[in-house]
């Protein structure tokens, strides 16, 4: 059943193309804003680049996850979904994994413009950068999918989503910045592995909480 739900998320996006497109346009706009306003040396920009990158991802995630849940509200499709005789935890898992896929696709597209427009060098170990980015994306979406599930049933969901999400996802963004900063500087793995463990803990905690609680938080 999980695969049916995941396929539904991916196919819905394939048909509408609203989610990735809006994330992409917003992400590229932020990069352009960064590029034309950071009138400082390349060394300083390179120091701040990891934070700038993950801050951009944070805003893009809010946009994407909000869209992912708002199309559930159109025509009350979410009611059909939760009234179906399925484990509602699987709905959370499908939102989580599909969000992870959309965010990763978006990141892969915006990464090159990010480095090119900000005139900074690519990380010395691109594979490690990619691997950790995937891990971080999982954590961001584990938090975002749970928070969106809570917020979507609220009357002011558009307001509630960022208010709830930003504080909860902040530890992930801080850890992501530290990890990416370490990789960009070519630091040894041991110097930033603690942040990776924090990310791993967040994935486990939010994944389990989301799967377990989604049954209750989705009811009006």
């Amino acid at each position: 059943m999980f695969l049916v739900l995941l396929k539904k998320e991916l196919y819905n996006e394939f048909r509408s193309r609203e989610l990735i497109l809006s994330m992409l346009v917003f992400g590229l706009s932020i990069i352009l804003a960064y590029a034309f306003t950071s009138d400082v040396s390349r060394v300083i920009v390179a120091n701040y680049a990891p934070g700038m990158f993950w801050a951009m991802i944070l805003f893009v995630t809010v946009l994407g996850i909000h869209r992912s849940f708002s199309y559930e509200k159109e025509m009350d499709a979410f009611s059909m979904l939760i009234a179906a005789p399925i484990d509602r935890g699987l709905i959370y898992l499908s939102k989580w994994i599909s969000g992870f896929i959309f965010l990763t696709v978006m990141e892969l597209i915006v990464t090159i413009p990010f480095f090119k427009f900000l005139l900074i060098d690519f990380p010395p170990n691109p594979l490690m950068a990619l691997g950790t980015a995937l891990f971080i994306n999982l954590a961001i979406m584990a938090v975002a999918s749970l928070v969106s599930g809570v917020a979507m049933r609220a009357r002011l969901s558009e307001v509630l989503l960022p208010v709830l999400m930003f504080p909860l996802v902040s530890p992930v963004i801080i850890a992501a910045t530290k990890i990416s900063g370490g990789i960009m500087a070519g630091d040894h793995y041991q110097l930033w592995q603690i942040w990776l463990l924090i990310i791993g803990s967040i994935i486990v905690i939010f994944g389990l909480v989301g799967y377990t609680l989604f049954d209750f938080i989705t009811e009006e």
Partner: protein
Amino acid sequence: MLSVSHLSKSFNRRPVLADITFEIATGETVVFMGKNGAGKSTLLRILARIMACDKGEVSFQNHDLLKGAPTTRKDLLYLGHASGMYSALSAVDNLSLALRLRGMRTSKEMIIEALTHYGLFDQKDDPIAVYSQGMLQRLKLTYAELAEWTLLLMDEPFSGLDDDGAKLMHDAILQWKSEAQSLCLVLHDEAKGKLYGDRILRIENGGIQESLCF
């Protein structure tokens, strides 16, 4: 088949449903009537487990519907005001998905055949975002026709339907009744209530004020 006891629900401390108790037997059609905001749709959404109640118990086929496993609502189908489907997907894709979620593998040919019967063949591949209210009602009717259920919860089934659509809905309800399937309908038209219902339960001031049997 369905037993509801002492069910209560409040919005902002204003009780909408207060200590509601009723039962629906197998093959029975119960029509809920009442003013706007009386709590008819709320009751249906609680029974479908879309909305949580404040207190009370609901037993469906001798299983606790509110606390039981997802499989306890396998034979229950809810069709609300809205279509309950995805606007970007076509009618065929939506029905295929909705049926898969109910554990059914229905062939595309069978879905198209049902869509044809309900007058949606020409628009079967269009995203349902372009459908009119009446077409969405026909789509819900097609879903109810294809899905397997023993109790149907349907909110205002005739809303938005033209004469042909209303005739299809009328025929479908009579067909389900003849097959001894249980129906819970929310209607506003007293004449239709008497036509389809074995009982009319009128919801007023949070409680069932009147129960007319035919």
